[in-house]
C-alpha cells in the first residue's frame, strides 16, 4: 500500500487548513454560496436532499484496515452510523454538517485519507482495477501509475476550473474491471513489440445523458512521457471544451464534435510542445511508488483444497471467490448486496468487522469495487471457511457476485436532489423477487444497474439490464434498457420502449429474464442471448 511521506502529509494537512478557512469565510458571509460551492465540491461536500453529503476518496479503491476503521468512526461520530460505497470506489456520507466538515477532513488526514477533488469540475479521484496486484491476468500492477497521476492531478493549478468533471481510470490487463472506456481518460498499461511498458490512451468516454465509449487516441505512450501526455489531453480540453452548455461540457462531446482524429492531432501538437517543458516526474519517482505496491509475503506450498462439505459455503466460494496469481490464495468478494438491502451501504459495525477480517486474512488490505462491494484481495484458501463464517454471521455473505441481485444502484430520490425517481426501493424489490421465485439461482451472470436520473451514476447504460428513473408528470417512472456492458466488450444498452411504474418495472425485469431462460443456449449469459436474438423477443414479452 502507498504510504504518505512528509510531503504528502503536509499537502493534505494544508488542504484541511485551507478548507477550514473557507468554511469560516462562508459562515461569516465573506463567501456567497455561488463562490463557496466549487470550493466545497472540490472537498467532496455536496448539498443534498437531507443534509450535506461528503464523498471521501479511496484512491484506486485501495484501503487498509486502519483506514476502514477510521471510515467507521466518521460514520458514527459525524453521520448516522453508515456510509455508501460508490461506483467510483469512493464512500459517501449522507448526513454531514458543514460545521463538522473541517474536523472530518482532519480525521481523514490522520489516516492518510482525504476528500480532495472528489467532486467539482476538476480531475477526480483515479479509479483502477479492484483486483490489481492479485489477478494473474495483469501485465503489471496498475496502481503505481494511478498514484503517479494522483499526485500530478492533485491541486493542478491549470485544471481546477475545467469545463466539467474529469474522471480517469487506469488498468493493466485485457480484462476491463474498471469500466475504463467509460471514463474521460481510460489508460491501459500495455507492452510494445520491443517489450517495453507504455500506456494506451482512450479519451472521451462517459455515461450521463450522452453515453460514449472512448476511442483509443494513442496506442503507446512511453512511461516516461505519461504525465506529459495526460497534461496535453487536459490542456486541449481546458482550452477548447464547451462551456456554453453544461450538458455538452464533458470531454466526450469535444472529442465527438472535433472527431477523434482532430482531437488527437491537437493533443499531439500540444504534447510535442510540452515535451520541451520538462514537466515529467523523474523516473525514480515511479520506482519509489512501485515499492509500495510490491507483493505481500505470500506463503508457498499452501493447500489448494477447499472443504466443500457445507453447500452454502461452497456456493459462496464458487460465486464470490476469484482466482489469484499466487497458488493457495483467492480474492474474496464481500457482497454489500444482501437480499432486500440497500446496495453499497455498510454500517459502522460492518466496516469494522470487514477491517478486522482484512487484517486477519488479507495482509491488511481491502478494495472497494466499482460494483459497490468490498474485496479482500489476498486470502488463503485454507482461511476461507473461517472468513465465510464470520461474514455469514454478520449478514455479509450473500453469494451473489455478478448475479441478478448484485445490483448497482445510485442513491436516487431517497438521497439525491437531482433524482427523478427512487433507485433503492426498486433494487430491493428486484432482489426480493428473484430470491422468492428461486430464479436468481439459475440466471448466472447478469449485471443489473439502476440510476435515478439521466446522470447515470448507477451505470444503467452499461447494465446487461439497465433501469433509468424518469419523472412522468410528477410520478416516478422507470425505463428498461437491455444489452449494455462495462467490461472488455463495452456496449451501451438500448431502451426497450415505454416506461413502467414501480411495480411494473419489477415485473418487466422478471419477464426479460424469462425470455432469456426460455431461449438461452449452452453457456450463454443473459447478455450473450440478448446479443444473439436481439431486442424483438424481449419487446414481445414486455409489451406484446
Amino acid at each position, binding site marked *: 500500500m502507498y504510504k504518505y511521506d512528509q510531503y504528502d502529509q503536509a499537502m493534505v494537512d494544508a488542504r484541511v487548513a485551507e478548507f477550514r478557512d473557507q468554511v469560516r469565510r*462562508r*459562515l461569516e*458571509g465573506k463567501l456567497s*454560496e455561488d463562490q463557496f460551492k466549487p470550493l466545497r465540491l472540490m472537498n467532496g461536500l455536496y*448539498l*443534498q*436532499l*437531507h*443534509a*450535506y453529503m461528503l464523498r471521501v476518496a479511496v484512491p484506486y479503491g485501495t484501503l487498509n484496515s486502519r483506514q476502514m476503521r477510521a471510515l467507521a468512526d466518521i460514520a458514527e461520530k459525524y453521520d*448516522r452510523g453508515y456510509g455508501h460505497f460508490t461506483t467510483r470506489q469512493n464512500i459517501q456520507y*449522507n*448526513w*454531514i*454538517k*458543514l*460545521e463538522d466538515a473541517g474536523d472530518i477532513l482532519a480525521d481523514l488526514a490522520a489516516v492518510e485519507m482525504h476528500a480532495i477533488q472528489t467532486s467539482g469540475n476538476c480531475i477526480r479521484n483515479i479509479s483502477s482495477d479492484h483486483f490489481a496486484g492479485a489477478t494473474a491476468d495483469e501485465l503489471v500492477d496498475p496502481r503505481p501509475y494511478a498514484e503517479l497521476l494522483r499526485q500530478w492531478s492533485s491541486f493542478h493549478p491549470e485544471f481546477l476550473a475545467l469545463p466539467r468533471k474529469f474522471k480517469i481510470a487506469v488498468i493493466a490487463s485485457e480484462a476491463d474491471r474498471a469500466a475504463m472506456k467509460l471514463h474521460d481518460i481510460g489508460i491501459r498499461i500495455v507492452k510494445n513489440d520491443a517489450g517495453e511498458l507504455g500506456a494506451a490512451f482512450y479519451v472521451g468516454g462517459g455515461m450521463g445523458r450522452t453515453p460514449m465509449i472512448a476511442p483509443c487516441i494513442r496506442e503507446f505512450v512511453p512511461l516516461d512521457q505519461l504525465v506529459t501526455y495526460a497534461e496535453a489531453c487536459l490542456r486541449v480540453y481546458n482550452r477548447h471544451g464547451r462551456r456554453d452548455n453544461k450538458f455538452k461540457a464533458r470531454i466526450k462531446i469535444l472529442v465527438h464534435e472535433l472527431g477523434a482524429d482532430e482531437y488527437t492531432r491537437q493533443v499531439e501538437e500540444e504534447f510535442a510542445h510540452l515535451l520541451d517543458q520538462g514537466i515529467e516526474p523523474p523516473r525514480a519517482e515511479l520506482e519509489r511508488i512501485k515499492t509500495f505496491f510490491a507483493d505481500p509475503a505470500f506463503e508457498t506450498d499452501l493447500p489448494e483444497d477447499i472443504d466443500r462439505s457445507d453447500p452454502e459455503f461452497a456456493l459462496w466460494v464458487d460465486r464470490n471467490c476469484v482466482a489469484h496469481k499466487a497458488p493457495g490464495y483467492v480474492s474474496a468478494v464481500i457482497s454489500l448486496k444482501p437480499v432486500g438491502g*440497500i446496495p453499497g451501504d455498510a454500517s459502522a459495525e460492518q466496516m469494522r468487522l470487514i477491517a478486522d477480517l482484512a487484517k486477519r486474512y488479507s495482509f491488511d488490505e481491502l478494495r472497494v469495487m466499482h460494483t459497490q462491494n468490498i474485496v479482500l484481495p489476498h486470502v488463503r484458501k485454507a482461511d476461507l471457511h473461517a472468513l465465510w463464517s464470520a461474514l455469514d454471521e454478520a449478514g455479509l455473505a450473500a453469494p451473489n457476485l455478478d448475479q441478478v441481485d448484485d445490483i448497482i444502484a445510485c442513491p436516487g*430520490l*431517497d*438521497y439525491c*436532489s437531482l*433524482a427523478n425517481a*427512487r433507485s*433503492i*426501493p426498486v433494487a*430491493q424489490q428486484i432482489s426480493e423477487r428473484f430470491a422468492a421465485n428461486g430464479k436468481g439461482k439459475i440466471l448466472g451472470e447478469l449485471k443489473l444497474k439502476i440510476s435515478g436520473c439521466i446522470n447515470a451514476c448507477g451505470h444503467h447504460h452499461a447494465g446487461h439490464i439497465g433501469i433509468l428513473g424518469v419523472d412522468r408528470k*410528477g*410520478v*416516478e417512472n422507470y425505463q428498461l434498457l437491455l444489452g449494455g456492458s462495462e467490461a472488455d466488450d463495452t456496449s451501451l444498452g438500448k431502451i426497450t420502449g415505454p416506461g413502467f411504474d414501480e411495480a411494473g418495472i419489477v415485473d418487466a425485469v422478471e419477464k426479460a429474464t424469462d425470455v432469456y431462460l426460455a431461449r438461452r443456449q449452452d453457456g450463454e449469459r443473459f447478455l450473450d442471448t440478448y446479443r444473439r436474438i436481439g431486442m424483438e423477443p424481449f419487446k414481445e414479452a414486455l409489451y406484446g
Partner: protein
Amino acid sequence: MKIVTGNDLKTGAVVWWTGVDWSIHVEDAVDAGEQAEDIATREEAARRVNAPYVIEGEKTAEGVRPAHIKDRIRALGPTVRPDLTLKPADPTAGNWVI
C-alpha cells in the same frame, strides 16, 4: 399554497419557513404567498438558510403536503430508512410520501 424551503447553512438540515423563522417540521410551513421569493432572497442573504426555493403545496387534513415527491421525501427522510426519518416510530409514515 406557496412554501419556502431550503437547508440550514450550518447543519444542512431541511427547513421550512414558518412566517417568522425556520422549522425542520413541514407541518409548521406557512403559505408565503406573493412574498415567497422575497423571503427566500432575504433569508439567504442573512445566512439564515442555504439554497432556498419556493414550492407549491397544499394544506390537507394530515397537514402541509408539498406537491412534489422530492419535497415530501425531504420533509420526512429517506423512504428506505424509516429509522432515520423524522417519524421513526411510525412504520407507515412512508405512505405519506408516495
